[in-house]
């Protein structure tokens, strides 16, 4: 189960990512718990497997519109599906990797797995997940943290 301080690590990771990558802050809503094993997903989801000190997954999920604008803010002109999938995986990887600042090096992260256009395929290994709502410009996304 995640402690409050551990949730703050991921909240900081989200805000730091948007501030640094886009120079436009994201606002983070109040994190909440989902108990039915279905935290939900948008068009694209980047999933990082966690092993070692903790076990589970962290995923970042967002609609295509948000990811397209995010790419453009990063001066990337190629907004193809391949690059959108690359981006959603990279966001998940960066936020999860940054969490090692607090969790330590034994918080092992996998390379990203990306699910596109099939939200039903996004599943969690445990029924209980924390959801961090993200608002950036006019878009909504979320980071889901499901750790044993």
């Amino acid at each position, binding site marked *: 189960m995640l402690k409050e301080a551990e949730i703050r690590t991921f909240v900081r990771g989200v805000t*730091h990512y948007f501030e*640094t990558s886009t120079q436009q802050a994201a606002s983070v809503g109040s994190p909440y718990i989902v108990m039915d094993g279905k935290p939900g997903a948008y068009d694209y989801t980047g999933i990082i497997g966690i092993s070692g000190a903790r076990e589970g997954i962290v995923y970042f999920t967002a609609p295509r519109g948000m990811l397209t604008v995010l790419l453009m803010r990063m001066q990337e002109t*190629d907004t193809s599906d391949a*690059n959108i999938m690359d981006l959603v995986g*990279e966001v998940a990887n960066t*936020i999860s*990797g*940054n969490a090692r600042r607090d969790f330590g090096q034994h918080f092992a992260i*996998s390379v990203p797995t990306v699910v596109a256009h099939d939200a039903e395929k996004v599943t969690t290994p445990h029924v209980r997940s924390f959801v961090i709502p993200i608002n950036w410009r006019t878009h909504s996304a979320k980071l889901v943290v499901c750790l044993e």
Partner: protein
Amino acid sequence: MSNRAPGEQPLKLMIVDDSNIIRRRIERSQQIARLQVVGAASNGREAVELFRRTRPDVVTMDLTMPEMDGVECVEQLVALNANVLILVVSALADKATAVEAIERGANGFLCKPFTDRQLNDALAELLSEA
């Protein structure tokens, strides 16, 4: 005949990252005039092959990659050329990972996400060792 001082000779840069976006971002954002990109690889194994062919002087290296991770790749590149300058560019933000990469032969560490300025500052600091 070039009248550049030896310290101003062009240096070959290889970019290693499993993200196409990050590879393109580094290529686009780096503003160091001496650096000329000679290639990019998406995993450690590709990087070793490309390194043998292009003999870069400077490498930016991701750590979490498929096939062969960045730490192992750093070790193999240093074995091929002990003078190569390697800047690790990774999201892994714990100190132990940075220390391990340096111990294996990397020369600097830049944490993702990064701004253009942070990238160029890190590359300039790396080149000050050249």
